[in-house]
């Protein structure tokens, strides 16, 4: 099975890596941010399939970004791989702690409680001078597998890093989703009582999903911090950031582990062009796009691919 996933994702990842040396810098930067958001949305997909909508993924996204930034600033460690690992661990840890409470709640209570947690972190960040308050913190130049990017710039290395991380994350999530624990998302959404009476803890299963989603969000946050070189509360922890992730999840659909990356790329492209050509109307354009997707593609953009395959 893993072989099958590699066969499908491998060539696509190779093509994306080659494009990293061809595409213009602005598009690489946009793609890097988009794929980093795709990582967060991949985690939301894991929750979404179990019927859980988190409006608080910014908590783990910011946690990962700040963990990477603070590690680089305070210890002098500037290797990107270590920083993203720290980001993922920070996201997973925060999700584990928040999950002790979140895993007990469902539906709107789950959504609002997750939002509340993220706004607590936002409040801490904006009030804390040590963490840069509203100005945030800047990241020193980082190295990628030992290559210094101080002179050459980090656009291409950051792009390659996020593509490789997206590839690995997609494979791991695919393996998880096909495993028993991952496959129980739909049964949990349908009927928790029966899952408990089959002998499993629904709370434990959901807690695991929260930690996976938290780790992916932390990873996305760390990559974003490395790519942009600066972290601040409004760009990482504010509730609109969480809303944006949910927006992309709906736009993308939950049909495949590739969907979050397609959705995030489309979202960033539409937003960038809307801001460039209609700076007063970009929210209206994005809102209209979401409305059209909900009305005509309830399975998200990914359903276009599955429809085409079914017709073929």
């Amino acid at each position, binding site marked *: 099975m893993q072989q099958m996933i590699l066969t499908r994702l491998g060539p696509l990842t190779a093509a994306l890596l080659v494009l990293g040396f061809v595409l213009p810098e602005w598009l690489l930067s946009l793609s890097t941010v988009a794929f980093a958001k795709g990582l967060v949305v991949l985690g939301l997909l894991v929750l979404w399939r179990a019927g859980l909508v988190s409006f608080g993924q910014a908590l783990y996204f910011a946690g990962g970004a700040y963990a990477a930034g603070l590690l680089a600033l305070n210890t002098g460690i500037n290797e990107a791989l270590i920083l993203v690992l720290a980001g993922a661990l920070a996201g997973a840890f925060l999700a584990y702690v928040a999950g002790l409470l979140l895993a007990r709640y469902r539906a709107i209570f789950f959504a609002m409680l997750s939002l509340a947690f993220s706004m607590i972190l936002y409040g801490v960040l904006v009030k804390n001078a040590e963490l840069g308050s509203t100005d945030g913190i800047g990241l020193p130049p980082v190295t990628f597998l030992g290559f210094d990017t101080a002179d050459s710039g980090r656009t291409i290395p950051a792009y390659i890093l996020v593509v490789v991380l997206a590839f690995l994350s997609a494979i791991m999530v695919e393996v998880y989703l*096909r495993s028993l624990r991952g496959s129980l998302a739909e049964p949990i959404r349908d*009927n928790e009582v029966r899952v408990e009476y089959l002998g499993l803890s629904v709370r434990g299963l959901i807690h695991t999903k929260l930690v996976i989603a938290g780790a992916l969000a932390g990873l996305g946050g760390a990559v974003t911090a490395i790519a942009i070189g600066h972290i601040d509360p409004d760009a990482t922890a504010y509730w609109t950031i969480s809303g944006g992730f949910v927006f992309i999840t709906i736009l993308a659909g939950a049909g495949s582990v590739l969907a979050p990356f397609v959705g995030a790329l489309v979202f960033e492209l539409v937003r960038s062009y809307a801001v460039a050509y209609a700076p007063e109307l970009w929210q209206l354009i994005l809102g209209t796009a979401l409305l059209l997707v909900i009305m005509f593609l309830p399975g998200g953009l990914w359903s276009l691919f599955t429809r085409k395959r079914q017709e073929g």
Partner: protein
Amino acid sequence: MEAILSADALNKSFGQVIAARDITVAIPARQTVGIIGANGAGKTTFVNMITGYLHPTSGRIRFQGKDITGLGPKEITRLGVCRSFQIAQIFPTMTTLENMVVALGVADRLAGRSGLLQPLRQAGREARAQEVLDHYGIADYGAQLAGVLPQGVRKLLDIAMAVASEPKVVLLDEPTSGVSAEEKFATMDAVIRALNEQGITVLFVEHDMEIVERYADRVLAFYDGTIIADGPPAETLIMRDVREFVIGDFQLRHPEGGGHA
């Protein structure tokens, strides 16, 4: 004969309302026990306490000599006590076959027959799921969404899923409720045959006395939260108190009268 399952002085109250009072019973292995009683008599409360859905206010529950009082559904299921429900607890947006595959997948995992990251859907497991559905006579519904199945098929699927983990004891809460008169015997035939073949001890809550007479080795009659009669169906169902307080057709069925419990 040593009891596989026993309850000792079980009590359950919800505030001022007493739902179960001083229930003491011992069930030997491989027995098929019918639980009867009017609505509110405490039958489902008893089943819910045994299976961890409710915790007794006082008293002890033992399974194979182990005290299981206060354990949750997950722990009790893992020990080997499973249940089905009055309203079938299935996964409505999945097909009948997928429901069974999930149940078998969890059973395999709990028995250590399947690894942590092994996929749920495997050809071998799907074939086994098909066999189980066939055993319960519902294989023709394999591709249908469980949410649109006829009531009798839903009940059978619920029971088949409940016993996928090969439990020692299964409690069936009204297995024929909502099942048409034409279907009820076929449903129970399929269930009891399958469970007896596996050597499972069965406790079933039932309102239909024809079903109880036909399938139970022993009857527990509940009234006002406690057991008022306990014995073979031929003896229990003709007791005066059972007919008056449980069956409710004393004059209609036995105008000549009967003995006390």
